[in-house]
């Protein structure tokens, strides 16, 4: 049976939430209308390709963000403060393990920015225990100053230069081994006492924004890139 691409046009100003059922087919698209950080009206197409575990956000043919190992949307897509696309994605965990990822996307100057990309839930299905959990419950705005609320507190402020949310600076020094979540490829990066914006979640994980890319610092001198590039 042939599946046809279904196209939904969603106006964020009227409906700021996209039902999961509208994006639950193996290959579906939606178009979201929202505002850029400069208050310009923009449209973002979101393709969910369940066949390839891939979620693609497209502003135009040259400007895309890809999220890999995306298996399902664990919650409806929301638009926060008319400017941020909120994605809560179920990613592949393992036997007895459920993993969710929280991603915020914004638009500025015809570019897509991944403002947040963190693992928000790791649940052990064996005993029901939770290894880590971050509840992102909303976003406040005052004069274009945004605060992201996590676990009931204003946890992350908006870095308008990098278009990301963060709550600290991380100092990196020396040689780091870097893997990619896309293909597990490995490379090395050298740092010289450099500070980068970071997100520290529940004191268990540090996500670092280095040259327009998100990394999670794992083991000593080890970074994992949370890939956005579609190629």
């Amino acid at each position: 049976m042939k599946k046809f691409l279904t196209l939904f046009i969603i106006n964020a100003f009227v409906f700021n939430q996209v039902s999961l059922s509208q994006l639950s087919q193996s290959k579906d698209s939606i178009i979201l209308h929202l505002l850029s950080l400069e208050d310009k009206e923009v449209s973002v197409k979101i393709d969910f390709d369940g066949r390839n575990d891939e979620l693609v956000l497209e502003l135009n043919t040259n400007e895309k963000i890809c999220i890999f190992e995306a298996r399902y949307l664990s919650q409806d897509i929301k638009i926060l403060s008319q400017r941020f696309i909120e994605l809560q994605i179920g990613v592949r965990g393992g036997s007895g393990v459920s993993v969710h990822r929280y991603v915020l996307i914004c638009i500025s100057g015809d570019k897509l920015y991944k403002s947040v990309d963190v693992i928000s839930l790791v649940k052990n299905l064996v005993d029901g225990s939770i290894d880590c959990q971050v509840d992102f419950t909303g976003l406040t705005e005052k004069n274009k100053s945004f605060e992201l609320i996590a676990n009931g507190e204003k946890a992350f402020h908006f870095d308008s230069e990098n278009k990301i949310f963060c709550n600290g600076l991380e100092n990196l020094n020396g040689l780091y081994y870097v893997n990619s979540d896309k293909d597990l490829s490995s490379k090395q990066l050298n740092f010289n006492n450099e500070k980068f914006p970071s997100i520290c979640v529940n004191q268990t994980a540090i996500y670092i924004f280095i040259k327009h890319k998100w990394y999670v610092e794992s083991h000593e001198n080890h970074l994992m890139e949370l890939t956005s590039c579609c190629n």
Partner: protein
Amino acid sequence: MFDMSHQVWDNMPEFGLVYLPWSFDRGGGGGGGGGNPFDAMNFLLSDDRPYGGNWSASSGIITIYESSAEAFFTSCRLIQNSSTWGITPAGSFGTALVNYHDALILQNAVASVSPYGFTFQEDPSLNALKQYLAIVAGESLSIEGEAQGIGSVIMNRLKFVCASILDENFVSKIGGEGQYDAIGDVIYNDVMGDSWEDIFSPGYKYASRISGASTALLSDKDYSYGAYFWNGTYQYFTQCIGFNWNEYNKGTFIITQSIGGTTFFKYKDPNKHWP
């Protein structure tokens, strides 16, 4: 060319045998099918693959030998008419056997020839088989080797608890639905909702996953190398890593191998398997 000497009745049901029961009802009513009583048979065969065997209209036993696993799965396509096998002239046939190596597919294709055509109803255990395929497809990426490994883990678990995917509730015997996060997700639901014709079509959207799941089911080979657990590899590089990687870090688990983006584990203690 074909192993015609193998007596398929020698190994009646043990673990590893796969039953695909079908029953046919005459004419109208629910269910798909139609055409001739070999529709179900042809679900497992195609006319462009080499296969051997024999069938007897009088005994109702059809025995088919495939030359390779690849040939078998390539042939898993429903075709409406098979000139190779013809249309049974009359009467009924009882049990069809498909034999590949040590795996048997026993097909209770009880049918009566009728000018009114046929419909079939799937046996509940066929739904369990589909659920197995759906779980593996949902848990793996589009890499056949990963699906093979995950399929083998499920086989290892089933073997350990002396169960098989023929059991309607086989999932409950290997940890329950909560163990398999894929259940209820897009890919799982797709497979469960798709027809057998779609699932075994070469162009099926999850063909590599289905192929991996199927070979793990029918092959003697353990593609996971004795694993009872798996996890996404990249999670090891995050700090919140979940049960399997935690057990690995504690020294309870050892890695049997990694395929694509999946790492497979077993207990370090050789006397401990699962759970």
